[in-house]
């Protein structure tokens, strides 16, 4: 059989287009929303202030998602499991933070010094609560299933997610609940080319950046971090080299939980509105971020978090918040289908 002959130049063009789309298609798809609304702003209002405001909000929201996405990516990197309960661990961190600061008497009238020290203490409590919870979940729900089929731990993860959501319902009831706006997060600190930057934005970025640097340095430099990387590469070989694989996995969950707890505190201060369902939502957004960046890749998770934060804000502001999940899940499906390794990740077997 003779295949219909395509002129070689044409075929080469198709191949070139394919490889271009494969490499840059995702970036193009991600740029669609900001570019379209940027042009619209320019033609309607003559400047990009509105888009700028979206992006500032997006980056500060995105840094919260980045913290959560790091937890997903760390755990996936080491045991190739989507820790479905991670979003709910973040939610519990949020609740713990709000509960603790109320318990130590932080209110709107607290002085600056009390506020700073109180919130630092809250940060420690929230991160510890989430970290301990995350390690406990690993111990109870994932470790007994290490040798089971891969679907088993995913199912227990979903189970734990529901359990934690119900803990949330018992803790703060089924509806959304406001908490004290302790840091007056909406007050403008400075303006950048006409775009207001608020205290909340600064707080989100100010907590996220040091934590990300701390965690990446820990993993890149410390002995335990080396053990983590070794376990991620080849658990069996790591064990032969004398690394305690079980402890290393626990440590990974501990780190992920710490970051989720920090994100929980920032979220509580930034959104000033808590809900048992926030974890499920945030978990899916952060998971999308982790996949977008390339799951298993730390820098990718941060990048993905920031991008998804911006997309979310633009969609909330322009299309309507009720459609934002559709947009985000649409991106998730697109990425998983066409570029499962994400922006920075490598090919995995999962992603075929």
């Amino acid at each position, binding site marked *: 059989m003779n295949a219909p002959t395509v002129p070689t130049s044409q075929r080469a063009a198709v191949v070139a287009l394919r490889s271009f789309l494969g490499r840059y298609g995702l970036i193009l798809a991600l740029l669609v929303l900001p570019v379209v609304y940027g042009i619209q702003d320019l033609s309607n209002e003559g400047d990009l202030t509105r888009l700028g405001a979206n992006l500032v909000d997006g980056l500060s929201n995105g840094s919260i998602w980045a913290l959560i996405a790091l937890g997903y990516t760390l755990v996936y990197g080491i045991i190739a499991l989507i820790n479905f309960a991670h979003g709910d661990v973040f939610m519990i961190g949020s609740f713990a933070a709000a509960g603790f600061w109320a318990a130590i008497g932080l209110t709107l009238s607290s002085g600056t010094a009390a506020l700073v020290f109180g919130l630092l203490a809250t940060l420690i409590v929230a991160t510890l609560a989430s970290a301990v919870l995350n390690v406990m979940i690993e111990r109870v729900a994932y470790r007994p299933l290490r*040798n089971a089929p891969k679907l088993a731990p995913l199912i227990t993860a979903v189970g734990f997610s529901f359990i934690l959501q119900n803990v949330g319902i018992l803790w703060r009831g089924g509806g959304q609940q406001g908490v004290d706006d302790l840091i007056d997060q909406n007050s403008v600190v400075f303006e950048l080319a006409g775009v207001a930057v608020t205290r909340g934005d600064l707080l989100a970025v100010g907590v996220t950046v040091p934590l990300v640097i701390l965690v990446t340095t820990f993993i890149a430099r410390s002995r335990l971090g080396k053990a983590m990387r070794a376990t991620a590469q080849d658990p069996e070989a790591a064990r032969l080299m004398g690394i305690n694989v079980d402890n290393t996995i626990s440590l990974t969950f501990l780190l992920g939980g710490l970051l989720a707890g920090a994100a929980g505190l920032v979220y509580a201060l930034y959104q000033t509105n808590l809900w048992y369902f926030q974890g499920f939502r945030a978990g899916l957004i952060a998971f999308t971020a982790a996949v977008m960046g390339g799951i298993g890749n730390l820098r990718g998770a941060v990048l993905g978090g920031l991008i998804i934060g911006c997309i979310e804000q633009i969609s909330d502001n322009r299309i309507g918040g009720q459609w934002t999940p559709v947009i985000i899940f649409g991106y998730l499906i697109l990425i998983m289908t066409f570029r499962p390794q994400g922006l920075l990740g490598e090919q995995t077997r999962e992603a075929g």
Partner: protein
Amino acid sequence: MTAVVQFARSKSGQRAIIATVAVLAILYPFAFDPLATPMNTAIYVVAYVMMALGLNIVVGFAGLLDIGYVAFYALGAYAVGWLASDHFTGVGGETGIHVLVSDLIASSPGIHLNFFLVLVIAMIIAAVLGAVIGLPTLRLRGDYIAIVTLAFGEIIGRIALNGDEISLGGGHTLTAGQQAIAPVDQPFLPGVNYEFDSAFNLRPYYWLGLVLLTFTLFVNFRLRDSRLGRAWIALREDEVAAASMGVPLVRTKLLAYAAGAALGGIAGAFLGSYTTAISSNQFEFSFSIFVLAMVILGGLGSIWGVVAGAALLATIDRYIIPEVLDDLPSKFGLDFRLTQLSFGIFGFLLVLIMVLRPEGLFPERRRKIELTEGAGAADDSLYEARS
């Protein structure tokens, strides 16, 4: 005692058990008032068992973890909402479109098809959508598949919720948004001129459910024992080996999604018509997990196991938690109702089953062997993804 167990294990014994259960199921309504709560519970049980059997094809037979199954429930229910209610008032002019409906409905505007026609259409729509959702997952494995199905399930739920913003022209919207599409038509048997009415008598609904369930069971058994069913099981056990033995991966996977979705669509249409209102807020992720929990509790791939698991969980969800145990916490001086926690209870059950008895209550024999072998072959599953 051993003689009894032996009889129960033998083929004729199993037939006797199934026959007894079937007769009891058929006679069940006569034990209650036609509108009693147990009738309502039983109808839900039957519908949930159907859904679990549909999901069993995807997850149990083909091994594709689908956690967005609620999409097909939604689609089946909306098929009833679209094609058997006043929702599209104005379509077909003043009189509307009527096919084989009772005299009572023949004068109302909108599209009104006979329930059984809608059932077939719901099945087809759901099957097509199932295959469409399956498409992006073809290149993926394991938990990535789960996430894509989850994303689709959430998107469909969202579209249902915000469907009043999607205009179809002529003043029609896709769904009624936060409001329900209600009332929808009840099933009607044109030959004998009998119309169901859930306000007066639940028995016909129950029996209709049993008929649909029998069909679902039949489809399940025939598919499992068919060439396609063996291909699914081969796929589940080892995709690479199955492909190299000549199993066409794409077609086999898509058919699994489509078949599972079609059964979900039937169950959705049945429930939609029974509840007479299609409200958008019931199509949540937790429902997908609820159905998955039924399949896992019963034993992935084991048809009778899934029936038992689904019946058990559906009874717990529809009867034991809301009717029997709801005020249990208040007896201990706690200020909440148990219904608030039903999904936490199911989550707990999921964890418990997976850790203690991952093969489910009534495992399929083949699956049981796989699982016990898996424990011996150690680290395979943990490490394979890294290699």
